[in-house]
């Protein structure tokens, strides 16, 4: 795979605040990267630097081997889709999409064909003459996408383009977006603070926390093993313990755990056995494949706290006698034990956090 984008040691100060702190990354041609992080984490700043709308205080950016530093935004060939679409209100849909082509000096006939093709691609065929002000939120983003794609940018940047849309529309548009980007073999960076979106859209995910790129990996690996406390907490994992917070009972549970390591117990790995059902082997909740050896494995006593139903699964809080809380995720196929019941808890597996 050819490397398209190289970013090295980018730094950016906004007043006394360091918004980017030594960010380096590489992007292969045709790859979609999602930049995930809380607001204020530096995602948008990174994007604006790539587009040339802001200058870095240190570090460099190369696109196909060419240093972007001295190039002005309009010379870079980098497309940008804004959160609020930023369509030109004085132009109709067709002229909006044609804007970049006119700037490139394309012939009128070719522009018309290309605009038609782009609107086809985003599912808005025949809307050339429509006024921009009459469009719905989803349509506006589709036009914005068509407008950015039309001049064939080498790199497409998307700054939370779906954030302002309602949930259903967001999912559909995210699906279409990935399909369109992949179909045209585009290299893209997609900024979002929505995890679901990030995991679905990206070939790889870069987690940006407080200006640092703390993790960059495929969605599967990232989700399986967040690698660090900060990332695990940002991803909203419930059962996260730092080395200091780790209760002795749990440490005893995982004897080969290094002393300075934190711990993440994935909620689907926390399994319950209701008191009084021991020995049956069928009472273990939260397992798909029953295993015989389970009965002899060690367990902890806990009291069932709040149960929350999420449609596809239950989340159950478990209060342990030692004074800590774990969250278990149970499939809907089995009704979880009632609040206040004592249960035996089996912990299968944990991942290390540093």
């Amino acid at each position: 795979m050819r490397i398209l984008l190289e970013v090295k040691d980018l730094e950016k100060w906004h007043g006394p605040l360091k918004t980017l702190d030594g960010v380096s990354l590489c992007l292969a041609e045709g790859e979609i990267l999602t930049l995930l992080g809380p607001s204020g984490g530096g995602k948008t700043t990174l994007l604006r630097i790539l587009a040339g709308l802001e200058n870095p205080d240190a570090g460099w950016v190369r696109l196909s081997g060419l240093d972007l530093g001295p190039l002005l935004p309009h010379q870079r060939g980098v497309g940008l889709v804004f959160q609020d679409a930023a369509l030109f209100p004085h132009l109709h849909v067709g002229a909006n999409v044609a804007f970049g082509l006119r700037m490139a000096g394309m012939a009128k006939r070719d522009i018309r064909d290309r605009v038609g093709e782009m609107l086809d691609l985003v599912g808005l065929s025949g809307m050339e003459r429509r006024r921009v002000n009459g469009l719905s939120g989803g349509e506006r983003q589709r036009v914005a996408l068509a407008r950015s794609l039309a001049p064939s940018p080498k790199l497409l940047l998307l700054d939370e383009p779906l954030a302002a849309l309602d949930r259903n529309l967001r999912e559909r548009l995210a699906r279409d977006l990935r399909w369109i980007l992949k179909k045209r073999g585009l290299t893209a960076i997609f900024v979002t603070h929505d995890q679901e979106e990030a995991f679905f859209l990206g070939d790889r995910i870069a987690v940006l926390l407080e200006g640092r790129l703390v993790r960059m990996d495929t969605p599967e690996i990232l989700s399986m093993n967040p690698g660090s406390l900060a990332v695990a907490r940002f991803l909203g994992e419930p059962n996260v313990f730092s080395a200091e917070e780790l209760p002795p009972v749990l440490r005893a549970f995982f004897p080969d755990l290094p002393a300075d390591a934190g711990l993440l117990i994935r909620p689907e790995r926390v399994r319950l056995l209701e008191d009084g059902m021991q020995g049956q082997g069928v009472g273990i909740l939260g397992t798909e494949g029953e295993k015989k050896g389970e009965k002899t494995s060690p367990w902890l006593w806990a009291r069932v706290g709040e149960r929350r139903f999420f449609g596809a699964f239950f989340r159950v809080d478990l209060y342990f006698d030692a004074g800590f809380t774990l969250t278990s995720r149970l499939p809907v196929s089995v009704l979880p034990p009632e609040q206040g019941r004592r249960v035996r808890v089996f912990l299968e597996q944990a991942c290390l956090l540093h």
Partner: protein
Amino acid sequence: MTESLFMLPLATSAVPLGLGFILALHWPLDLRGTPLLVILAHSLVGFPFVMRVLLPALRSVPRDLREAATTLGASPWTSWWRVELPLVLPAVGVAALFAFTVSLGEFGASLFAVRPELATLPVSIYRYLSHPGPLNYAKAMAMGVWLMIMTAGSFWLISRLMGLMRAGGAQDE
């Protein structure tokens, strides 16, 4: 700061303004008595009104639009010409009409600036009125009517354009 500086011509009466022009502009170029002096004086009087209308309009153009234009390959000049100017066009119209109306009714500075054979409307009215005689009164009245019609007309146009501005300056190309 600069903005309040633009408002300065409003702070003083137009009479010293005209007088100041006469005093200031005799060297190195003697502009006294030329039509250029009238234009200069009227520009200065109209300037605060133009600024008052144009600055907020220019500021209300979202930064996103300018940035979108540049990432699509437009140089700063092209993005101004193709995006910002079309969006503030109604405001430019309003500003121009305001300046026109102010200039139409301007009296104090003109009194000093104009020559007898090149008078502005209010100055002529003043002169006719200061020479008694029924014919002179009639002429002054007729000019007064014209002045009223033109002023009312441009204010009507201004209010129409203001409506356009409020509609977001959205018109198809």
